[in-house]
């Protein structure tokens, strides 16, 4: 990036992107901010209410519990998918006839529409017609993700790990592919153990792709909507209702413009804040 030519006419090059993003992001976002500060009765009859909606949302116990569930879900998903993804990446063959086949198998879950992912797990985990559900029942365990909170969470986590570990694995695989053979030879000469090779040769070079992987999984797990919507519908009760689902029911189901808009702004800011905190803390550690 250092030897780029200074030239302000370059703005012309980014103009198309700016127009598209202005249309698809800035205008809608400004609309949301606008709604979040007003009480709208009809298009010609609106009242400025300041931060009232924000206060209401923050005091809404259902918002708070959805947020806590969301944090627990994202933490669990990251704690499982990142280490497992690295392990899978290390076991993927880099050459040979079977290498592309394994790569395609690993990539497949990423290309399945999200509601189909929900359907697949619905069919797979049902105690009456599902292979998993029936097997667990055959083992004598009482398993039903539509009535038990614990079972619903287990199924949801199994589904998300199934769906997204491959993203971490592919990113880590790309990172590992860029490490050159001499590093490994040097480690071998020094008599390094497998763990030491991982810790001192692989991990430092995986750092940048792992940052991307954690960021993507952090924000995407925080926005999850479709898969739990199909699998559990947010239940049993509200046990698997996450932020997006609560927001959607508020905005589209009940058409509560003001509170939903305030919710939206808080939601977006929260994701930005988390990503920024993670990124700056990783970078600061890098410098010191």
């Amino acid at each position: 990036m250092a030897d780029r030519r200074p030239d302000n006419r370059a703005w012309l090059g980014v103009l198309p992107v700016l127009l598209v993003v202005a249309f698809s992001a800035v205008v809608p976002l400004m609309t949301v901010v606008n709604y979040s500060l007003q009480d709208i009765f009809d298009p010609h009859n609106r009242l400025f209410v300041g931060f009232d909606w924000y206060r209401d949302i923050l005091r809404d116990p259902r918002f708070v519990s959805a947020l806590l569930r969301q944090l627990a879900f994202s933490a669990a998903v990251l704690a499982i998918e990142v280490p497992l993804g690295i392990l899978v990446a290390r076991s993927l063959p880099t050459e040979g006839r079977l290498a592309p086949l394994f790569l395609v198998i690993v990539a497949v879950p990423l290309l399945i529409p999200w509601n189909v992912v929900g359907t697949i797990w619905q069919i797979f985990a049902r105690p009456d017609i599902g292979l998993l559900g029936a097997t667990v029942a055959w083992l004598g365990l009482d398993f039903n993700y539509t009535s038990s909170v614990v079972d619903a969470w287990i199924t949801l986590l199994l589904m998300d790990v199934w769906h997204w570990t491959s993203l971490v694995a592919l990113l880590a695989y790309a990172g590992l592919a860029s490490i050159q053979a001499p590093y490994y030879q040097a480690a071998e000469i020094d008599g390094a153990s497998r763990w030491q090779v991982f810790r001192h040769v692989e991990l430092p070079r995986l750092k940048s792709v792992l940052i991307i992987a954690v960021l993507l999984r952090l924000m995407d797990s925080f926005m999850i909507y479709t898969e739990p919507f199909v699998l559990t519908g947010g239940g049993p009760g509200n046990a698997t209702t996450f932020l997006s689902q609560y927001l959607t029911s508020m905005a589209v189901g009940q058409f509560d413009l003001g509170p939903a808009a305030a919710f939206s702004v808080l939601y977006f800011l929260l994701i930005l804040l988390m990503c920024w905190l993670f990124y700056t803390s990783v970078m600061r550690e890098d410098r010191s």
Partner: protein
Amino acid sequence: MRRRGHWLLYAYCAYLLLPLYWLLNMALRRNQDIAAGLEVIPANATLANFAEIFNNPVWYEGFGNSLTYVSLNTLISVVVALPAAYTFSRYRFVGDKHLFFWLLTNRMAPPAVFLLPFFQLYSAIGLFDTPLAVALAHCLFTVPLAVWILEGFMSSVPKSLDEMARIDGHRLPYFFLRIFLPTIRGGIGVTVFFCFMFSWVELLLARTLTASSAKPIVVVMTRTVSASGLDWGVLAAAGVLTIVPGVAVVWFVRKHLVKGFAMGRV
């Protein structure tokens, strides 16, 4: 030399494939057989569920609608992202870094946030229930991603290529289209793959912005569940069909993907 397939990889692949196998298994059985009990290998395998989908216009039109907006989205994203990514990788200008990061923040916006304004915006300009509306809405996350991936690929091309073309007297548009783009075609392949993937799998925005004439396949699926109760066989068959384009895309770009992963950003 250091990595070979071992038990973890086989176990992981089995974990990935078992639910998929079960989907296929369901798709090949009639509803009365499904209700009758578990069959690990279908005894009376039939293609009746697939036949029902191919004979019902709601299903195959949904498939066409999805492919239309996904293609449109991929086209728009790549076309607008190419000049922007080149600009970011080659020029310094006022606010360049801020602009780049601001673009990325759009990837962090939850689609649920945009439901209401998108619905109103596209209704107001008469695009509601068209594939173009969904394609533009999906630009929310595909455009930042495309700029980001392409910038990585373009920055890995030495700037001496640009200098040489200038010395040879080529104008920028000619150089960009005839020399530069062919050099980064692997990167364009990876970008197409990711735009296709993220637009193909999305449901929430696609559902909100369509009603009847542009209804995508994924939405047809969710509505069939609620309408006819539990038609597991047809639902599973539809699921199998939605997986086909993704697998086809990944199979065709598998070599680019490995190389692209290794040299680019993603």
